[in-house]
């Protein structure tokens, strides 16, 4: 292993220094000015809720995203804004990343995957060299593993793939590893293997390497981090040594500072009726009820919704009156017919339900669309213009109208407000409350806290399972955070 940093010329300058770095995606400000320094031997724990800007920050550090404003310098040398340049600097500085989504080539073997990031691999007998180095790295980090260098990655389990990816990231190459960015590296590892990784991280830092460690397991953060950085709404709000925090103060630090000024339009008149759905995973809902699915992104909420939805609708015969409708969050993938008009997109669901004849009843279709245009406030002059001519928020309204126009009593929503402006959100919240009062049931997965606060009952997900059920006044940001970050795991 090449963990020891032999060069000393850069010992005084920090490895990476960010000065007031901002990153904008269109109107969205993902980072609103982050300043940060990372020196050799430090292990930074990076925490924050969904959309706090964690992944944007690390992508700027590893050079994959160029900053919109501000400067970033590697080992004391300042650099330009071009992405290629930063990526190259990050590469020669020895910054390496392991992300949550696995980035191995499944069709290649373990040693062949090692060849991909190793750009100047010796040509002669490279298989022997690659095999030896990858196994050495695996043996050092995960002693006792059962992986062979010639195994094809697609035949490995998820945990083994994650182990291979970590081992490849730490393995020796032309530029030694100086800063390792680990984004939820333990999420697919069991406790014993995770323990090995944490121990290795400590060894790595003692030898002078630096680590940025992102995890939802606060116990792990407290275990390995020498400094904790808290991010919130695109800002670094706290940056202190680990010793200054305890679990409670860390959760408090992550919460929203700015409370939503306007009172939530809870209509207290709704009284939940009989139970209309329950699933094996423990999810259940009653008539008139708005049920929220909360927790950090990617912890099984979407899967829970999808499996419930597909179970109740996917019969090969199809059906005219489905019990459940779905509002997509990923509009482009799950929702829109991009080449169709607004009208056609809106009436898609109701065509089969109301249309009893072979031909489409144009008048009824027009009527329906005109009704909903007014009801939900779709801002357009012409319903026949293409759907993509609308703004994101209005596209989402069309999808809502499509679902609400049907007679289905249960509405499943997969984080539908992504990229929607505040005005539209308020409209839709009101609409949802109304529809619930009329007798509908909503299953609402959201990554935004103010939306979860709209719900009557909330299931918090962690690691693919429900970790808490909150009702009424218990639905607070603090309780949700506590349940979505592992608080009880046994850290050493």
């Amino acid at each position, binding site marked *: 292993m090449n963990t020891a940093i032999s060069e000393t010329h850069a010992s005084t300058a920090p490895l990476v220094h960010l000065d007031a770095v901002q990153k904008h995606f269109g109107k969205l400000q993902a980072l609103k000015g982050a300043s940060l320094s990372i020196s050799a031997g430090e292990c930074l724990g990076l925490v924050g809720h969904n959309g706090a800007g964690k992944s944007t920050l690390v992508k700027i550090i590893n050079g*994959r995203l160029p900053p919109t404003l501000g400067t970033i310098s590697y080992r004391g040398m300042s650099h330009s804004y071009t992405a290629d340049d930063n*990526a*190259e600097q990050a*590469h020669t500085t020895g910054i390496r990343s392991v992300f949550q989504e696995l*980035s*191995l*080539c*499944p*069709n*290649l073997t373990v040693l*062949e995957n090692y*060849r*991909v*990031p190793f*750009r100047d*691999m010796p*040509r002669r007998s*490279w*298989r022997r060299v690659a095999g030896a180095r990858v196994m050495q790295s695996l043996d050092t980090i995960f002693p006792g593993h059962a992986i*062979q260098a010639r*195994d*094809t990655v697609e*035949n490995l389990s998820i945990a083994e793939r994650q182990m291979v990816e970590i081992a490849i990231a730490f393995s020796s190459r032309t530029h030694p590893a100086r800063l390792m960015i680990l984004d939820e590296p333990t999420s697919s590892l069991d406790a014993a293997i995770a323990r090995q990784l944490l121990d290795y991280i400590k060894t790595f830092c003692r030898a002078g390497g630096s680590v940025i460690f992102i995890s939802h397991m606060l116990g792990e953060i407290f275990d390995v981090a020498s400094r904790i950085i808290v991010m919130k709404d695109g800002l670094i709000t706290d940056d202190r040594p680990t010793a200054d925090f305890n679990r409670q103060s860390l959760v408090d630090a992550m919460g929203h500072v700015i409370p939503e000024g306007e009172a939530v339009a809870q209509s207290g008149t709704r009284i939940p009726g009989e139970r209309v759905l329950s699933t094996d995973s423990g999810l259940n809902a009653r008539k008139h009820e708005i049920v929220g699915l909360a927790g950090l992104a990617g912890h099984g909420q979407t899967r829970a919704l999808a499996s419930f939805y597909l179970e109740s609708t996917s019969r090969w015969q199809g059906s005219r009156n489905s019990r459940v409708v779905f509002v997509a969050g990923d509009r482009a993938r799950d929702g829109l017919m991009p080449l169709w008009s607004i009208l056609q997109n809106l009436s898609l669901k109701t065509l089969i339900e109301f249309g009893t004849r072979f031909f489409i009843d144009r008048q009824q279709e027009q009527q329906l669309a005109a009704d909903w245009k007014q009801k939900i406030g779709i801002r357009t002059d012409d319903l026949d213009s293409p759907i993509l001519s609308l703004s994101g928020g209005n596209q989402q309204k069309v999808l809502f109208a499509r679902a609400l126009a049907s007679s289905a009593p249960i509405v499943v929503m997969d984080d539908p407000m992504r990229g929607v402006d505040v005005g539209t959100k308020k409209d839709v919240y009101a609409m949802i409350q109304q529809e619930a009062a009329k007798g509908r049931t909503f299953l609402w997965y959201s990554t935004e806290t103010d939306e979860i606060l709209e719900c009557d009952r909330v299931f918090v997900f962690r690691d693919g399972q429900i970790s808490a059920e909150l009702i009424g006044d218990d639905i607070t940001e603090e309780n949700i955070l506590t349940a979505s970050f592992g608080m009880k795991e046994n850290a050493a």
Partner: protein
Amino acid sequence: MNMSRDHFRILLPVLSLVVLLAGVFYLQPRAMSYFGLNLLFNLAVPVALATIAQMMIIMVNDIDLSIGTFVSFCACVTATFVQETPLLGYLILLMSIGAYAGIGALIHYRNLPAIVVTLGTSFVWGGLAILILPSPGGSSPEWLHAIMKSKPPLVPMAIIASVIIGVLTHLLIKRSSFGVLLRGVGGNDRTLSRAGWSVLKLKASAYGLAGLFGVLSGMALIGLTTSADANIALRYTLLSIAGVILGGGEFTGGRVSPIGAVIGALTLTLAASFLSFLKLSPDWQIGSQGAILILVLAARLAFAKREAQQ
């Protein structure tokens, strides 16, 4: 368990080749000779080369619908220009390899669907072939004819050539570190570009290699037939795709096997002879060839399913 799928992937084409060969020998014992084997597999050499060309494209998650007309075009060039004015002839072939690489780069750069682009270029190659040879004709360069018709001792030329093609491409694609990158493009091109590789260059290389093997296929074909025709290799488009899949390759994910592809090409050629020996009317032959293909692929699917359940 770990290796069984990979083993099965190469076992299946080998088994189907053996079964077909046994069938042919049973029907026509005289085929079991030096001369008989050469006759059976002679035409498999250009098919195997075209299959390797197709494999290069499938390896990077694309598909090439123009390989048949491209091989026809190369055959026409070989039978005319290479025959008459060798320098110009080889230059044209070299440029067509460059054109293939360029098409690959364009497909990646503009994010175009390969199936559409290559369908378009198939008409271009076909048109050029007709321009060069409006009516069947031309002749093979002497040396090419001599190689293809040579009779080495013990093992017929067709078998030796197939083994050489298989082993060389196996070394290039499966063993070399450059081959790893090429297959990596099919497996996860984002990872490659993150690691600082130019996917554009890699894709262009894969297409360029496909062009090279297409040229070799056209030349081998002319060495065998000695004269060309603008439609000489139209069947190769579908044969080559079938050969790659039969040989254990998959349409996506960079899962290809060069040795399997060569065996797949041999199997497909043999299937045609087998049906002739069965005295099946030629009207039914194409359909029966398809049926054999479906049978083999169904066996593979059944196995994959069983493994997934375990």
